[in-house]
C-alpha cells in the first residue's frame, strides 16, 4: 500500500502544471470569481466556451487520456488519469466537454463497433467536432431500461424508427446519439432491443427542450418520426442492444475529478460561511467538517477501487457504493450552503443581495437531479446489495 506517486507520474503532473500555468489565464474572469455573472448552463455561449477550452486541452494532448493511442487517445495509466484530474480540480479549471461522447459513446464504439464505425466516429468525438448525446431513457423506461418502447422496423438497408426519448442531455447541441430501439417485439423484453448510432440532424428527429426545476433546459426530449437509420449504424447484433447499453453504463468515470471537486466546494463554502459570519457557529463547523470527511471517504474509496482495477481485480462493492453516496453528498452540501445563507438563500441569480449571484441556489436545485439521472439511488443500492454484497434477488 503506497499513496505516493512515481517519478514518471510526477513528470506528467509537471507537464500539466506547466500547461495550466500558461493557459489558465486565458479563461474568462467569471470562471474564477464567484461574485461575477456566468452564462446560463444551457446557453449557446456556455456551450461554445466549453468547446473552445476543450480544443485547447485536445491540442495539449489531454483529451481521451484513457483511450488507446491507436484511436487517438493518450493511452495513459489510471494513475495518470488521477494525476490529471487532481491537477485540473486543484487549478479549478473547466474539464473537457463532449463528456458523453468521450466517456460513453466512444468506448462503446471501440468495444462493440465495426472498423468503419471506429474510423468514422472516434476522431471527431475526441476533438469535439461532433457532440454526442445518449438516447436510452423513455417516459415508461426510467429505471427500467428494458421497457424501451421506441420501435424500429427494417426496410431494406434501413431501419425506420419511431418513438420518444427523454432526458437527452444536451440534445439541442448534439450531432449524434447512441440509441436503444425495440426491433424484435416478439422477443423477451431484454432480448428485443438493438443499439444504433443516430444522426441527430436526420429528417424526422425533433428535439424539444425539457425544462428542469432550475429553470434551465440542459436536457431534451427527442422525438423520432419515421427516422431512417442505415444498417451500418447498428452496433453489435440485433437483439443485443440491452446488453450493449449495460456495457455502456459501466464506462463510468473514475470519479476522482469529482472527489477533488468536492474539496473545492467545501473550501468555497467555508469562504461563504466566513462572509456570512457563520464560520464560528459550532453547528456549521460540525456539518462542514462532516462534508469534508465524506468527500475524503469518496475520494480514497474511489482510489481503492482504481487500485483494484489497476491490479486486474474486479472492483469490490466499494466502487458502486460510492456513486450513490457521492451524488447524495452534493445534495447535502448544497442544502447546507442554503442554510448558511439564512434569509438570503431565497434570492436568485440577478437579484440584488443574492449571494455569489445565486450559484448556490442553482446548485441546490440542480443537485436534486443527481440521484435520478444516472440511475436512481434506490437502483444503485439494489445493485450494491445484489452484485456487491451478494444478497439474493427476491
Amino acid at each position, binding site marked *: 500500500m503506497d499513496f505516493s506517486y512515481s517519478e514518471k507520474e510526477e513528470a506528467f503532473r509537471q507537464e500539466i502544471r506547466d500547461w495550466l500555468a500558461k493557459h489558465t489565464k486565458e479563461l474568462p474572469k467569471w470562471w474564477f470569481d464567484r461574485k461575477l455573472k456566468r452564462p446560463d448552463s444551457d446557453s449557446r455561449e456556455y456551450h461554445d466556451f466549453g468547446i473552445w477550452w476543450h480544443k485547447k486541452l485536445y491540442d495539449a494532448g489531454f483529451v481521451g487520456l484513457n483511450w488507446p493511442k491507436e484511436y487517438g487517445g493518450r493511452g495513459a495509466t489510471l494513475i495518470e488519469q488521477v494525476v490529471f484530474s487532481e491537477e485540473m480540480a486543484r487549478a479549478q479549471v473547466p474539464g473537457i466537454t463532449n463528456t458523453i461522447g468521450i466517456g460513453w459513446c466512444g468506448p462503446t464504439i471501440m468495444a462493440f463497433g465495426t472498423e468503419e464505425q471506429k474510423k468514422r466516429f472516434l476522431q471527431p468525438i475526441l476533438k469535439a467536432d461532433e457532440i454526442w448525446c445518449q438516447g436510452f431513457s423513455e417516459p415508461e423506461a426510467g429505471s427500467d431500461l428494458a421497457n424501451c418502447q421506441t420501435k424500429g422496423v427494417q426496410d431494406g438497408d434501413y431501419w425506420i424508427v419511431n418513438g420518444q426519448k427523454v432526458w437527452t442531455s444536451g440534445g439541442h447541441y448534439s450531432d449524434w446519439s447512441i440509441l436503444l430501439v425495440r426491433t424484435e417485439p416478439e422477443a423477451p423484453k431484454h432480448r428485443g432491443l438493438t443499439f444504433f448510432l443516430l444522426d441527430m440532424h436526420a429528417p424526422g428527429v425533433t428535439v424539444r427542450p425539457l425544462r428542469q426545476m432550475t*429553470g434551465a433546459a440542459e436536457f431534451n426530449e427527442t422525438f423520432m418520426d419515421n427516422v431512417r437509420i442505415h444498417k451500418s449504424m447498428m452496433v453489435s447484433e440485433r437483439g443485443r442492444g440491452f446488453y450493449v447499453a449495460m456495457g455502456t453504463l459501466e464506462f463510468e468515470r473514475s470519479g476522482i475529478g469529482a472527489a477533488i471537486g468536492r474539496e473545492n466546494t467545501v473550501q468555497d463554502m467555508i469562504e461563504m460561511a466566513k462572509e456570512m459570519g457563520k464560520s464560528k457557529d459550532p*453547528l456549521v463547523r460540525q456539518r462542514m467538517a462532516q462534508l469534508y470527511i465524506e468527500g475524503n471517504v469518496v475520494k480514497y474509496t474511489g482510489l481503492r477501487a482504481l487500485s483494484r482495477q489497476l491490479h486486474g481485480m474486479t472492483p469490490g462493492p466499494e466502487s458502486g457504493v460510492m456513486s450513490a453516496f457521492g451524488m447524495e453528498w452534493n445534495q447535502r452540501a448544497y442544502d447546507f450552503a442554503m442554510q448558511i445563507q439564512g434569509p438570503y438563500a431565497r434570492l436568485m441569480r440577478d437579484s440584488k443581495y443574492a449571494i455569489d449571484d445565486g450559484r448556490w441556489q442553482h446548485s441546490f436545485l440542480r443537485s436534486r437531479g443527481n440521484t435520478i439521472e444516472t440511475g436512481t439511488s434506490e437502483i444503485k443500492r439494489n445493485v450494491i446489495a445484489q452484485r456487491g454484497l451478494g444478497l439474493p434477488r427476491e
Partner: protein
Amino acid sequence: MNFELGEEQVMLKTSAREFLDKECQKKHVRAMMDDEKGYSPELWKKMAGLGWQGLAFPEQYGGVGSSFLDLVVLLEEMGRALVPGPFLATIVHTGRAILLAGSEQQKKEYLTRIANGDLVMTLALTEETGGIEAADINMKAKAADNHFIISGKKLFVPDAHIADSYVVVARTKGGVRKENGITLFLVDAKTKGIKVEMLKTMTGEKLCTVVFDNVSVPSANVLGTVDKGWPVVKQVLEEAIIAECAWMTGGARWVLETTIDYAKSRIQFGHPIGSFQAIQHKLANVAVEVEGCTSLTYYAAWTVTENDPNRTVAASMAKAWVSDSYKHATFEGVQIHGGIGFTWDHDMHLYFKRAKHGEIAFGDGDYHREKVAQLLKM
C-alpha cells in the same frame, strides 16, 4: 378534549379546498410567479367575499370572529394550494399586530378595511442581518414634535411593492437591553421618502427592500406604546411562525398525497413502484413527519387561541419540526417521482421551493431548537 376538527372547521376546510381547486389552480400560481404584482386582486376580493381576510378578527371590526385555530385550518388549505399573494403579510404579520396593540380607532380603521379586502399590508421587520431578535432591529426613528422621522433599510419585506400600508418596526431608543426602545409605526406606503425595490426569489414570491429616507410619520400612527413595541413583535412572531407552519403543513400533505398516488400508478419492472419496500418505507417516514406537522401545528394554534403559557415553546417546536419535515417530504417527493419530478412542468418543484422558503422564514430548525433548549432551561 378533542383533537379532531370540529364540524365548522371541517366545513371551512372543505369549502376552502373546493374554492381553491377552482380559483387557484397551478396555472394561476405559475402565472403569478412572473407577474409584476404577484397576486390577483380579483381573487383577493373573492376571498374577502368569503370572509377569509376577516376570519379571525372580531365582528366589530368587520371580521367573522373565528379563532386563530380556525384561521390555521384555512391557512393549511391555502398553503396546499400555494395561494400567491399578501395573505399572511396582511392578515397575520400586520393584522394580528394591529389587533394586539392598536387603539380602538386604529383597529376600526385598518382591520375593517383588511376584512373587506380593501387594504393590503405588510410588516417591515428584518434588516440586513436577516435576524428576528430585538438586537437585529437597528432602523432609527427619531421623535420630533407630533411626528417621528424614520431612516434606514428593511430587507426581505414580503409584498411591500403592493402594500398600501406598512407596520414598521424601528428603534426609538438605544441602550444595552435591546428589547427596550422598539416602537411600531403604521406607515402609509405612499409617504414621501420611501423607496421599494423588488428582489428576485426562488419561489417567485415577492420580497422587497424598503428604504426609508427621512420618512415623517405622525405620532398618531404609533401602534401601541412608544419604546414598548418588542413584546408585541414577539407575540406576532409566534403567531406568524404558527401560521407559516400551517401553510407549510398544507403543502407537505399535498406532497405526501401526490407522491403516494404516483407511487401507486407508476409501473417499473412490471410493478407499481409503491409496492417496492424502499419506496414504502420512504413514504412511511414522510407520513410520520407530516402527521407530526399537523399535530404540533394544531397544538401550537390551540395555545394561541387559549393564550396558553406554552405558546412560545409550542411555536418553536412546531417550526423546528415543520421546517425539516416539509423539506424532507419534497426531497423524497422529487426522488420518488424520478425524472418527471425534476421538471419545470411538474408541480412538485413549486412545493420543493416553497418548502425551502418556509424553512428559512422566521428561523430555521436549528434556530428554533436552540429556542426550545432555552425554554427547557438548559
